[in-house]
């Protein structure tokens, strides 16, 4: 079963480098390389397939944004599309075949104590010697050679545990929480940009008791937006990992492929939902109230 929390690979001072952080950095690296190469090609006025693909993605998403917000600024469009591309590539990176299988196998020993109490045995000399040499037991002899031996044996088992090198970054609560908080910060900035600091009158309005109560409700809904953003994305991707694991172990891998295709679809839908919700909340923050 995929673990609920990411595994810690190593520490840099007190910073835990988890496998999801490592994968996020790899995804960042590849996406940046892709965008930089496309940018260089555009500057050189060279029409390439990369440019065509990038423009296809950009125009499709920007059209969606224009449907919701009439005339969005370029900053808004790039901010929201960055969310989409990062979430989509993170979701899809987690479905690559080496992600659940590559890892470091750690052998560590597990110690289990078991206590055997043997009563009324005629302890032979070798037993007593063994017991004394291992310093593990307590012997009380009632009579000569009629002993109660409290033999606690120490079992040492070798347990191998796999430390996964990669994990889908969106299957980590801290990553999705960061994205959700960033999204809310972006929404607030857009609100301040259109209304100035009177945007906060939405939350702290003391002109009357009803307005004050509505302000509290708005504040709660802002917090619940963060929570629902976080757990919608995290839950979907983590549930996908568990689903693929369960299907693989149930059917020995025969029925896994359709579920992996389903997870590709779910990954796209979730990235799109995150993107669209951020846009809708931004348009709400820009609206008059």
């Amino acid at each position, binding site marked *: 079963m995929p673990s609920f929390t990411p595994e810690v690979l190593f520490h840099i001072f007190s910073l835990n480098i988890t496998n999801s952080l490592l994968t996020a950095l790899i995804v960042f690296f590849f996406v940046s390389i892709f965008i930089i190469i496309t940018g260089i090609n555009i500057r050189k006025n060279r029409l390439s397939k990369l440019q065509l693909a990038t423009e296809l993605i950009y125009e499709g998403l920007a059209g969606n944004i224009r449907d919701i917000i009439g005339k969005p600024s370029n900053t808004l469009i790039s901010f929201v599309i960055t969310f989409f591309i990062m979430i989509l590539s993170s979701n899809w990176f987690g479905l690559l075949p080496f992600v659940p299988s590559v890892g470091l196998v750690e052998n560590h020993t597990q110690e289990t104590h078991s206590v055997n109490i043997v009563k009324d045995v005629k302890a032979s000399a070798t037993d007593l010697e063994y017991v004394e040499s291992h310093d593990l037991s307590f012997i009380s002899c009632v009579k000569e050679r009629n002993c109660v031996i409290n033999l606690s044996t120490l079992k040492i088992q070798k347990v191998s545990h796999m430390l996964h090198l990669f994990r889908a970054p969106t299957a980590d609560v801290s990553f999705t929480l960061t994205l959700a908080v960033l999204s809310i910060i972006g929404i607030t900035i857009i609100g301040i940009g259109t209304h100035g600091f009177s945007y906060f009158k939405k939350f702290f309005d003391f002109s009357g008791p009803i307005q004050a109560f509505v302000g509290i409700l708005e504040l709660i809904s802002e917090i619940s937006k963060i929570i629902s953003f976080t757990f919608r994305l*995290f*839950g*979907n991707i*983590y549930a996908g990992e568990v689903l693929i694991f369960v299907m693989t172990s149930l059917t020995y891998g025969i029925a896994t492929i359709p579920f992996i295709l389903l997870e590709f679809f779910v990954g796209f839908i979730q990235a799109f*939902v995150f993107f669209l919700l951020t846009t809708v909340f931004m348009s709400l923050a820009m609206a008059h109230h």
Partner: protein
Amino acid sequence: MDAEAARFLGKALAIGLGALGPGLGIGILSGKALEAIGRNPEAEGKIRTTMILAIAFAEAIAIYALVVSFTI
């Protein structure tokens, strides 16, 4: 009933009851979307996009229940 049994029951109830509502919701949503497509076949693309979005919202509630059932 010992604590471990209660934990397993809690897990099963959390996901079982949590999947009930979203299941109904997704069914109603797709039914209405199909009706809409039947009435206005030209708008199929737009209706499908909106339907998938709404289904994702309904599904998210089941996912919350799943997360809760894993953390119990």
